[in-house]
């Protein structure tokens, strides 16, 4: 009996010990998690409570001092660049290790390893798009042509790895504890992957959707609904710019034939419309101080831990400060003693699709220029948590990887679409930022940009010497008119792009007469630019509002630029709403005593601002959404993937051609015109508004749009923040919508000592238990900033703590 008693007790004890250290489904290992010495309790400490004064770092050349200011912004003082990047790696890992690793896992198509089969489709897409392949190309390129950058990337990796290797169970970021895995070593490859991930995040294309649309609408109507340039083009490079180069010649080949068939693949997710960024610089002639002021606010997904991590990097030669991307070297958007720079996405179609014909089902040979060419196979092994690995074979042609085929997202057996993308090219984006960090003048800036391939960016620039500039930089294929807008024939060499627009011909301007440069993801140029520039997702509103404001402003101070970054004027509404009200003859409706007159009156009196407490933006937003859905219903319901005309063109159509047959719904006997859609959608809006008010008790814009800063694992709801009280929205300069917005705001005034301010929605710490996890959030929502002025090693004020790295 006693044996049984003992055996029983022992079994319970062992089961408890083992079971509580294992993960069951989504339930984390509770014993490990609740252990006060190693589990989540240990993540309650803020960084200053666990700070170390000295850390020994093997391989360091000289001592490095790191001063953390009261916002936990590290200021790294190193004697040389190699040590600087070692320290950057160490410090970043200290506060953002889980995030930087998770993002590179996503970029490598390895999320399934962490979260299980739910991410398999995502991982397959990432791999089929060739992101890991692209990063390998990038690494190879550095090994052969830029060993200095590689040395710095390796130094950064050493720093990250030092932190990982000395990481105790207690200090492990909480996400590892909950998801039950451990960090692996960092490498230069991972940093490159991260930059490719940015390219993936920012670049889209609609070639397959356009192919379907061309078949549905015909070329003429397609061009009308999707014109190359909008009526009111207000491009990045001022329209008056006179091009000072002799362009390369290219013309559309005769009798070119696009594949005509309809496409039924589940196309990949695209960058969300309305995301993008603003940047601008005003020259000294327009500022109070007589020195240029530069502003940048990149809009990306609003996530926690924040995408950006603020830092100052100092060597005896230079001192640079701004926003870094955890995992990448140097400052990405920032300033030093001499220059300031910022980035916005320069969207352009640099991703094209080729239909490939294979000789046999084994896909070993494909047709190119009427000859059979050998393909190569890349076997992607995707590890899946709790399951056997998934093997995916991706066929590579000289165009690029076959993304869609019988094994992936295509219904038909003979679909083989190869992706050609500039991000696959060997490139060295990292070098651009390393050079900008220590740049001193306009020439240095141009030289730095020459290394930049993808994702194309509008790099804004200002210098202490008084220059302001902007350049649309990326490696852009030299395309004939219309090339790559649709799915192309992989057999026909004339369909291929082979050359690139030289860097010197990329659109750029220096000290334009208007006294400012700016970009907001709009068209890069005006039609006089001698190369074909096409993309589906150009901005039409933020740019015009921004430029209008900048044209009018004078005697500008830093505060004015901050205010402009927080500008809530809704230009799209200001253009669309009067048209809509006019179409339904709102005045008459009110005079007739329409039961919804109050709503109409309130909309008619709207000043078109989108401040958090206003209700009109909520009404307009709903009305527009219903209207847009109603007008393009037939396209939305199409079983083939298509893309809809943008807001701007839709408003033009409502305004100028309200009787157009495009408004007729083929499913009804009646002949509909624009007015019918506007009236019906107005009624739908009223129903939705009443319902929303009944549920939430109010209709304020902030409540309605529900800006949410979400943890990278959406299930970790308590690590996220919902219902942020802030205004703005898509296509508004303060582009804060529900899930996207200014992920970083910076304003810099150049001078003997630059003045700078910055903010982002989050905090320096990646640890949800730290008070620095969300310490910037409220300020960000209110349009406030923290001081980002350069610090000296000897500055003693507002120091949270200091750490010395010793060799």
């Amino acid at each position: 009996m006693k044996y049984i008693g003992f055996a029983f007790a022992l079994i319970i004890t062992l089961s408890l010990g083992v079971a509580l250290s294992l993960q069951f489904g989504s339930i984390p290992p509770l014993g490990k998690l609740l252990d006060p010495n190693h589990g989540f309790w240990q993540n309650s400490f803020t960084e200053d409570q666990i700070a170390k004064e000295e850390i020994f770092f093997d391989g360091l050349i000289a001592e490095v001092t790191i001063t953390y200011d009261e916002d936990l912004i590290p200021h790294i003082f190193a004697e040389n660049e190699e040590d600087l990047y070692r320290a950057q790696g160490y410090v970043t890992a200290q506060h953002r290790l889980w995030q930087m690793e998770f993002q590179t896992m996503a970029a490598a198509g390895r999320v399934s390893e962490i979260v299980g089969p739910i991410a398999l489709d995502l991982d397959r897409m990432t791999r089929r798009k060739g992101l890991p392949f692209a990063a390998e190309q990038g690494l190879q390129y550095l090994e052969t042509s830029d060993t200095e950058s590689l040395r710095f990337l390796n130094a950064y990796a050493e720093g990250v790895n030092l932190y990982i290797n000395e990481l105790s169970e207690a200090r492990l970021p909480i996400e590892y504890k909950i998801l039950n895995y451990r960090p692996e070593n960092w490498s230069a490859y991972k940093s490159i992957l991260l930059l490719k991930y940015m390219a993936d995040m920012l670049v889209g294309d609609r070639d397959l959707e356009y192919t379907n649309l061309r078949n549905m609408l015909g070329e003429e109507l397609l061009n009308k609904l999707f014109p190359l340039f909008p009526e009111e083009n207000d491009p990045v490079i001022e329209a008056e710019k006179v091009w000072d180069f002799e362009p390369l010649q290219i013309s559309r080949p005769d009798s070119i034939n696009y594949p005509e068939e309809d496409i039924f693949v589940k196309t990949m997710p695209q960058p969300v419309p309305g995301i993008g960024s603003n940047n601008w610089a005003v020259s000294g002639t327009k500022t109070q101080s007589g020195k240029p002021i530069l502003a940048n606010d990149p809009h990306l997904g609003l996530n926690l831990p924040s995408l950006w991590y603020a830092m100052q990097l100092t060597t005896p030669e230079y001192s640079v400060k701004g926003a870094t991307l955890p995992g990448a070297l140097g400052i990405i958007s920032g300033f030093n003693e001499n220059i300031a720079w910022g980035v916005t996405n320069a969207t352009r179609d640099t991703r094209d699709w080729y239909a490939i014909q294979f000789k046999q089902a084994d896909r070993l040979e494909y047709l190119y220029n009427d000859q059979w060419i050998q393909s190569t196979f890349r076997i992607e092994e995707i590890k899946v948590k709790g399951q056997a690995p998934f093997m995916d074979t991706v066929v590579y042609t000289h165009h690029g990887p076959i993304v869609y085929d019988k094994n992936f997202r295509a219904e038909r057996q003979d679909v083989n679409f190869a992706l050609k993308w500039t991000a696959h090219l060997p490139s060295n984006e990292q070098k651009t930022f390393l050079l900008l960090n220590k740049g001193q003048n306009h020439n240095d800036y141009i030289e730095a940009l020459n290394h930049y391939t993808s994702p194309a960016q509008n790099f804004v620039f200002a210098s202490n010497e008084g220059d302001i500039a902007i350049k649309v930089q990326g490696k852009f294929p030299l395309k004939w008119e219309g090339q790559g807008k649709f799915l192309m024939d992989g057999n026909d060499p004339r369909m291929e792009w082979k050359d690139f627009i030289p860097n010197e011909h990329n659109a750029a301007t220096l000290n334009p007469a208007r006294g400012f440069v700016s970009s907001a993801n709009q068209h890069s140029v005006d039609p006089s630019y001698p190369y074909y520039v096409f993309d589906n997702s150009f901005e039409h509103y933020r740019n015009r509002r921004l430029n209008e404001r900048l044209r009018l402003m004078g005697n500008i101070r830093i505060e004015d630029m901050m205010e402009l970054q927080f500008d809530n004027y809704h230009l799209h509404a200001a253009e669309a709403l009067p048209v809509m009200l006019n179409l339904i003859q709102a005045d008459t409706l009110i005079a007739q005593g329409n039961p919804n007159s109050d709503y109409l009156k309130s909309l008619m009196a709207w000043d078109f601002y989108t401040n958090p407490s206003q209700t009109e933006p909520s009404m307009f937003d709903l009305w527009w959404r219903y209207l847009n859905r109603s007008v393009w219903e037939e396209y939305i319901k199409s079983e083939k993937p298509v893309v809809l005309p943008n807001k701007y063109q839709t408003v033009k159509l409502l305004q100028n051609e309200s009787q157009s047959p495009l408004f007729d719904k083929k499913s009804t006997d009646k002949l509909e015109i624009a007015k019918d859609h506007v009236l019906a959608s107005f009624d739908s809006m009223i129903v939705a508004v009443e319902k929303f008010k009944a549920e939430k008790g109010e209709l304020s814009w902030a409540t309605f749009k529900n800006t949410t800063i979400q943890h990278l694992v959406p299930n970790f709801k308590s690590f996220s923040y919902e219902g942020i009280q802030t205004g703005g929205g898509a296509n508004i300069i303060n582009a804060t919508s529900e899930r996207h917005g200014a992920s970083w705001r910076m304003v810099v005034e150049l001078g003997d000592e630059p003045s700078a301010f910055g903010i982002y929605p989050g905090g320096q710490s990646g640890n949800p238990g730290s008070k620095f996890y969300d310490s910037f959030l409220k300020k960000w929502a209110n349009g406030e900033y923290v001081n980002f002025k350069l610090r000296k090693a000897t500055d003693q004020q507002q120091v949270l703590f200091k750490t010395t790295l010793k060799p």
Partner: protein
Amino acid sequence: MIRFTALLILSALFILILGPFFSYPVLMIGVFILAYLVGGSGGISFFAGGLSFGLIWFFQAVYIAVQTNSSLPEKMAELMGLGESNLLWVATGLLGFLLGGFSALSGSLLRNLFKKKRDQGIYRY
């Protein structure tokens, strides 16, 4: 009672001092050995081991929460579907109690096993 107090204090000290350096399975083995050495009855060992383990974990959790004033316990409680972050202290203590209690019980029953063998040797025949 002496054995109860002895095991309570010894295992509490053991968990307090070695807790930061070892993961909880090591602590369980420690409590198991201590219970074997102290040699209380099953019930006494279970409660002494359980209380020492549970109370140390409970107070360590409370101490960290008070010392850091962090919002993490609330966030974790929400994430784990517990309404109140105070419940997390209780859960931590309860888990500690179970780990300590069953480890000590196993240790004491093992000793009981050997004791019994000797007893049988003397009184048989």
